[in-house]
C-alpha cells in the first residue's frame, strides 16, 4: 500500500522558505496569496501502513520542529 506523509514546520516557528515563496509569488504578480508554508512530502510503499506513524516519530519527522500527517492511499500505484 502507498502511504503519504505530509510534514510541515510547527506553528510559530519561523519558516523562511515559506516567506521567500510568498514574496516571490507576490513579486511574480500573483495576488491574494498568504500563509505559505513549505514542508516535506514522503511517499512510500509499505506492507503494513500501521507502522508509518512510528517511522515518522523515529525518523521521518522531528517532533520538536515539525508536525506530520499520514495518509494511506489504497494502491494508487504512484
Amino acid at each position, binding site marked *: 500500500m502507498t502511504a503519504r506523509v505530509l510534514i510541515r514546520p510547527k506553528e510559530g*516557528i*519561523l519558516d*523562511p*522558505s515559506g516567506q*521567500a515563496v510568498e514574496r516571490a509569488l507576490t513579486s511574480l504578480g500573483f495576488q491574494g496569496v498568504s500563509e505559505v508554508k513549505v514542508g*516535506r512530502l514522503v511517499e512510500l510503499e509499505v506492507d503494513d501502513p500501521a507502522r508509518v506513524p512510528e517511522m515518522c516519530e523515529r*525518523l*521521518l519527522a*522531528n517532533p*520538536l*520542529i515539525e508536525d506530520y500527517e499520514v495518509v494511506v492511499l489504497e494502491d494508487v500505484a504512484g
Partner: protein
Amino acid sequence: MTFGVLRFPGSCDEVDALLACRRFADAELIWHGDRDLGGVDAVVVPGGFSYGDYLRAGAIARFSPAMEAVADFAHAGGPVLGICNGFQVLCEAGLLPGALLPNESLRFVCRQVDVEVVNADTPFTRTSRPGDVLSIPVKHTTGRYYAPGVTLEELEANGQVLLRYAAGQNPNGSLRNIAGVCNQGRNVMGLMPHPEHAVDPLTGSADGGVLFASLAAHVEALVATA
C-alpha cells in the same frame, strides 16, 4: 588522553577534527559501524554531511551503531563534542536540547565569525574566561538554533548556553544568538562554528583550540583525581 572522532559516510571534517585533536592529545577515528569506542576519553562528532544530510541534517546518522555507543558513553558522563553536523546529530539523538533549522538566508554560509564565551565553567570551555571572544569560522546551511521558549529560559538559567555569536554576527538567525549549548550534565556540547578549523593562525585563527585544550585538561584532571 585520547579523543575519538566519529566517521560516518559523508563526514567531511573528520580528518580536520582528528588533526586538531592531535595538537592537544592523542586521537583516533571511529568507524560509524563500530559499536566499540575503543576506550577513548572524549568523543568528537564531526562536521560534514553524514548520509548526505538527506531528509534532515543529522537525522540518519544518529541511528548508527557508533552513535548508540556514544549515547551510552554520554549517559555514563563521558564528554562528547558535536561540531556542526555533529551538533545536528546530537540534537536529533536527544543528547542535546533543541534543533537546528535552515539558515534564515536559506543559503550556505562560510564565514569567519566572532563568538563570545558565555560560560567558562564546563569541560569544553574551562581554559577560557567568560566574555572571551573567539574568532572561529562557520560553514553550514542548517545552523539556526531553535528551542521552545521554556527550554531557552532553562538553558540560560542553568548556564547551558556556552557560546553566543557576537553582536551583529549571527550568521543564521539562531535564537538569542546561540552558537553552542551543552546538556544539563555539562558533558555533551554542540556548536555550529568549527573550532577544528581554528587551531592555526596560518589558516585563519587558533582560537578554536580552547575547546580541545579544555577537554584535554578536563580529562587529565579526572585522571589525576582518580
